[in-house]
């Protein structure tokens, strides 16, 4: 019996290693309904920012974004507009740069400050210095949005994905995924589209 067990174990190990070798694992990180971790990350003004600082927030739009990715740049104005609209309603944008500046110098802390000033960012722009936060969320690219709802049990993930369905042309947008999700959340309604995908720049780790 012991041999059998051993064989089974070996078979299982061999099989699982073959499996992970052949097939890319599903995105690790959060799924809809999970509770998201808080963090303490440095903002461009030198202050540390945590979700727990926002006593009156109803939720958060955590957006992993950066300076260097053309898709992130294409969405900058829309992110500012979303923050202006929803921070008033209790759902502020918190932008986090997940990239390692040593691998992508355009995403250095100093250049984050420069870009935020140029564009007039209305929201915190944090650096995931130790690159420990984005893997927990399961962000894979920039820009990558996570909508959280503040509940008594923690910040619950309500939407994961892209901002809308047309990065190239704002006037060609047919579905505003993020705005629809926040509106539904604030109205206590189910979110129709909870996850979306988009081409983005892989995070530089």
């Amino acid at each position, binding site marked *: 019996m012991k041999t059998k067990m051993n064989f089974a174990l070996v078979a299982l190990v061999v099989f699982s290693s073959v499996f992970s070798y052949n097939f890319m694992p599903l995105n690790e990180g959060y799924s809809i309904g999970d509770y998201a971790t808080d963090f303490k990350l440095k903002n461009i003004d030198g202050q540390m920012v945590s979700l727990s600082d926002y006593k009156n927030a109803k939720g958060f739009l955590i957006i992993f974004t950066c300076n260097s990715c053309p898709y992130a740049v294409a969405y900058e104005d829309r992110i500012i507009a979303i923050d202006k609209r929803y921070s008033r309603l209790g759902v502020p944008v918190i932008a986090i740069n997940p990239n390692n500046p040593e691998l992508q110098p355009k995403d250095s802390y100093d250049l984050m400050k420069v870009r935020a000033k140029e564009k007039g960012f209305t929201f915190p722009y944090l650096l995931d210095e130790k690159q420990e936060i984005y893997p927990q969320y399961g962000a894979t690219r920039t820009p990558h949005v996570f909508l959280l709802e503040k509940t008594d049990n923690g910040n619950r993930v309500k939407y994961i*994905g*892209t901002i809308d369905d047309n990065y190239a042309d704002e006037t060609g947008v047919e579905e505003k995924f993020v705005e629809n999700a926040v509106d539904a959340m604030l109205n206590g309604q189910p979110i129709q589209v909870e996850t979306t995908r988009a081409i983005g720049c*892989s995070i530089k780790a």
Partner: protein
Amino acid sequence: MVRVVICFLLAVTLGCKQKSQKIDETAKLRSIAKKDTTRLLESDGLTIEIFDFDELEPQLYQENDTTYIINFWATWCAPCVKELPYFEKINAEQKEENVKVILVSLDMPKMWKTQLIPFIKKKNIRSKVLILDDPKQNTWIPKVDANWSGGIPATLIYNNDKRILYEKSFEYDELIRELNTFK
């Protein structure tokens, strides 16, 4: 216990087989109908076809003896640019072995003439380059692979028997190793 493991193995293998998608006949037909109207980027002596996803899709489901390597990339994507020479090498060296590389550029329209064309010329790219211009990414990304989150570089390798999307960058040895699993 052994039986359980074998059952598990079987179940997963069968599950995977079923996942290998069928050709979308409609997409194929639509593309043939559109053939005459394929958009072309002509610049600096180069001509590149510009596809939306419906037009590209048949290239992802060709049924013949060839193993296709479809690499999704862009000139602004540093890890993509780094691995391009590996795909070029394979395309050059394995033509006789029925391996074909197609480089699907996701460069944005404003970059086509200013970045993409000069890049292709400078690097003297020999593999086939196509442009995929289709902003409805949330619609087409899952059609390439159900598990692709949309990060690039991403590479689809497929033939009649097997189909895998790799959402990662490759080193040359690793790419060869993966490719060999298709032979």
